[in-house]
């Protein structure tokens, strides 16, 4: 019994090691592919339909493409299929018909055992943060790396680095319940991004936060987006969406009702972005900076 379990354990370890090596090779191959002109979009849905057991149709013939490096909002009323979209992209639900492709790979053809490896390449952020309450900020972030079998020296290097990026370098050894909502969301973003995944999904990341904190979080997501990661944000916050001036996908009752490209989109630095959005929303630093605020700008907290 003991020998057998040791054997299976060793086999499992060998398998993951092999898989990791393969994943590493895959990554370098992918980098080579970057130089090639045609690269599949990071997310592509073709007539994707998702039906839950019980017959509820959560997504109906949804088709869209997201190019690498885009920043995309998904909006829509409650129950329109936004969360289902996220769950489909991480392979938690499978489409009943149509195709869902992540970086050119059909999720439905992915074997069950490969799904964890898909998720390592997709960062996820949720409204309720999903932090582990009995681990410090550091351990929460290091957790992702431990799961993927990262070397300890790498963990020691990467975790403080990412915590500096999200602005939590002073709270490394705090526990989640000692942090504010915005700080907790930053930890959760750090955890999602510590692997530098090519795709980051955020499901209502500012749903529990006040406007000022929300802008900070959006600014952080924008900063991550500017490193080349594709960011997809599901949100209720119409005002924020309007101010961000990015591409918007609107869902209603499982159907894609609007795919509005960023009309007035222009390149701006992260700090420019923060200042502009704050100013336009009439929140926080926008006032103190003494920058002109349009009086018609919608009042905070509406």
């Amino acid at each position, binding site marked *: *019994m003991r020998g057998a379990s040791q054997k299976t*354990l060793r086999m*499992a*370890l060998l398998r*993951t090691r092999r898989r990791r090596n393969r994943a590493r090779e895959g990554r370098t191959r992918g980098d080579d592919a970057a130089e090639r002109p045609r690269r599949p979009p990071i997310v592509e849905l073709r007539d994707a339909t998702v039906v839950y057991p019980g017959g509820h149709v959560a997504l109906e013939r949804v088709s869209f493409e997201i190019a690498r490096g885009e920043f995309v909002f998904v909006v829509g009323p409650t129950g329109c299929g936004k969360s289902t979209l996220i769950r489909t992209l*991480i*392979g*938690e639900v499978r489409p009943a018909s149509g195709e869902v492709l992540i970086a050119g790979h059909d999720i439905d053809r992915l074997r*069950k*055992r490969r*799904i*964890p*490896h*898909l*998720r*390592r*390449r997709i960062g*996820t952020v949720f409204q309720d943060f*999903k*932090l*582990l309450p*009995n681990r410090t900020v550091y351990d929460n972030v290091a*957790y*992702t790396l*431990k*799961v*993927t*079998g990262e*070397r*300890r020296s790498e963990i020691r290097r990467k975790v403080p680095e990412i915590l500096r990026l999200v602005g939590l370098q002073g709270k490394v050894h705090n526990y989640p319940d000692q942090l504010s909502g915005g700080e907790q969301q930053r930890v959760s973003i750090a*955890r999602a991004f510590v692997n530098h995944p090519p795709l980051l999904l955020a499901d209502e990341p500012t749903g529990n936060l006040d406007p000022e904190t929300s802008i900070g979080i959006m600014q952080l997501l924008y900063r991550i987006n500017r490193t080349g990661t594709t960011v997809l944000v599901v949100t209720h916050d119409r005002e924020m969406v309007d101010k961000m001036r990015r591409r918007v996908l609107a869902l209603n009752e499982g159907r894609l009702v609007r795919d509005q490209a960023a009309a007035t989109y222009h390149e701006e630095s992260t700090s420019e972005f923060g200042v502009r959005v704050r100013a336009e929303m009439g929140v926080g630093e926008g006032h103190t900076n003494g920058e002109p605020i349009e009086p018609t700008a919608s009042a905070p907290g509406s």
Partner: protein
Amino acid sequence: MRRIFFFIAEAFRALRRSASPSLAAIVTVVMTTLLLGVFIPVIRASSTTTENVQSQLALYVYMYPDATKKQAQAAEKRINKIHRVKNTDFVSPNEGLNRLRENIGKSEIGKGITQLQGKNPLPYSVVVHPDDPNDLPAIQRAITPPGKHAKPISPAIQEVNSGQKAAQAIRTVTNAVKVMLTVIAALLLIVSLLLIANTIRLSIYARRREVEVMRLVGATNWFIRWPFVIEGLVVGLTGAAIAVGMLWIGKVTIIDPLAENFALIDNFSTVGFVPLIIVLLAASIVVSALGSGITLRRFLRV
């Protein structure tokens, strides 16, 4: 290797954190192992006494006093042909007298037997051993069929003594005791299995958030499962070790002194202590580890 340490560290972390459910699981394992450790030898002992009693059960077929040796031998041959008779013993009057003397010993009656003054009142007789003591009545019916005008299979046979009614009574009692103990032991085993499974389910339920996060950051199912299995192993091992320690103390302080004073206990061929311990340890570890591993399945649906 790094992973093994990670798994072990995670398992102990979980045990420390959920101390009271872990303690409950350990106590359950202790109780089950202890009860099994007492019941297995008792059941074993009661079945050995039953075997002893059963080996003594036989039919005593007595010839008429005036039957000759030839007639008696012919009768024995016929009895031997009866279905399910294992073998027969031919007992001459002299041998019968010797056996009687041995059985009765040197009491007053024994002295009376020695004073027969050369006359032997005993007839030829045949002792019939069955394949199975439960066949005795059938064999007896075959030798002397019931009914007024029915005749025994040999005219030399005077009577058949199924004898040893007391032994048969003992047999029924020990059988009943054996069945009862087995039923109680089985019930206890089932109850404690359910208890262990339930405790583990609770501990997993308490950590379902952790499992959820592990899945989100791309942990494989086995990666999630190992800490739980190790946790189960530790619980099983600790519980079994405590129980075995208690059994050993019980054996040294209670059973061993008894065995010295009463030859009776020595006669029982009980299970050896070492194999018993090995069986108990193995059983509790396997049950606990499997319990955690299997209970996790429902949380690991991709």
